[in-house]
């Protein structure tokens, strides 16, 4: 099944033009008082959701922008943002 991704600048494109950038994990933690555990959680740990997740992508063979989409990991289909947050 082909994966397509909608780039905010270039529109819907072939998924192989993009590089996956990881699960959305919120803002980078503050360095003040940061523990190895919290840093490790931010850097390495994933939820590995079998279902819809929010994630980062990089349009490496295109405009070079970084952006977030919602995608169902069991079907590889991109989900409309409004649909996903409902």
């Amino acid at each position, binding site marked *: *099944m*082909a*994966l397509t991704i909608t780039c905010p600048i270039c529109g819907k494109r072939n*998924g*192989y033009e993009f*590089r*996956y950038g*990881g699960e959305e994990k919120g803002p980078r933690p503050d360095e003040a008082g940061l523990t*190895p*555990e919290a*840093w*490790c*959680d931010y850097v*390495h*740990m*994933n*939820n*590995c*959701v*079998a279902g819809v997740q929010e994630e980062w992508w990089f349009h490496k063979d295109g405009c070079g922008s970084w952006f977030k989409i919602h995608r169902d*990991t*069991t*079907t*590889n289909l991109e989900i409309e943002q409004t649909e996903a947050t409902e």
Partner: protein
Amino acid sequence: MFLKNKPMWGKRTKLKSSYDVVIIGGGLHSLATAYYLAKDYGITDIAILEKNYIGFGGAGRNTAIVRANQRTQYNVPLYKEALDLWPVLTKELDYNLMFNNCGNLNLMHSEAAMKAARMNICTAQFHGVESHLIDAKEAKELVPALNISEDITFPIHGAMFHPPGGIVRHDAVVWGLAKGAAKKGVEIHQQTEALDITTKNGKVESVKTNMGTIQTKQVMISAGGYSAALINSMLGIRLPISVLTIQAMVTQPLKPILDHVVSSGAYHCYANQTLKGEIATGAHMDPWPNYTTLNTAYYIKHQAEALSEFLPALRGLKFMRIWGGLADMTPDMAPIMDGNDQVEGFFMDCGWGYFGFKSCSAVGKYMAEFIAKNECPDILKPFNLKRYQDHKLMGETAALVNYSPDN
């Protein structure tokens, strides 16, 4: 329909309300652990819970390659033992696992790759594993079908030759271990889905399933690619894992042409000829996490291109069957085996990526020791989950170019 029939491993049993040990996942690591718990420690009151049927996941989807030529001092002894156990298990289980130690040939396509291979070989030789560096001409002598000319995308500089590796019939391992474990009293419950693990005061108390609740003090999750999601949803433990589909395919059968497992990192392609004559070949993982286990035209084309370059005699062959499985990749390409840490009585054996099959025999033995003695065997200690926050990643990848889910 097969629900009504008697299972091949013995009697169908009813799920009881308590067990000494519950194992979630009916794959090879679970079956092997249960087998060794029963055989070595006399612990037989075990339930293996499998949502589908045994061998449905990675156990029946891998490309059946076994080898012990990994990179680090922690991994090699474990895989060596796993390799040494195939003939032993064949006898013990009285089941033909069809171990064909035809040897592995890892092709190297640059001087940098040759240098990395030298280090792997030194590690292997230090641990008593036979492994040699050979040049392109010697590789051609071993596998006459190889194209060692310089006019291909990645010309072959040489290879890492690992004679003791080879192929084991993966379904036979599932059937043999299931029979062996059941004979000793282990219960295998198919179509039984573990829904939750309940804990009390930091200790495992019970496992909820679609067939009722089971009281138990010890539970292990070794559910292949599904482990990370299960461990997170049941116990809130997040793991450094990305779950990716990995694709494989077989061609139409040929007369004998390949008598070694041939693999190439640069082409992201590995191939061997099965006893039926088909060329079984696997690709790199999908570059983004997904649970689809679907094949893509992209990789079928990629495999065809790669194979027709370094094994040009295969040009024009048709792929007969294609399939996919899941690889749960960690950042350091080494597994996570841990227990009694986050929750007392909870054990995990996951993050195997595409190494789960070749390790199952030895890991079953040591996870059984871990569960039986409640103490981590020395050989498994480096694989704990804490290594990521201590920044002691294992270095199984020679040169990690990008920190990406597919390494």
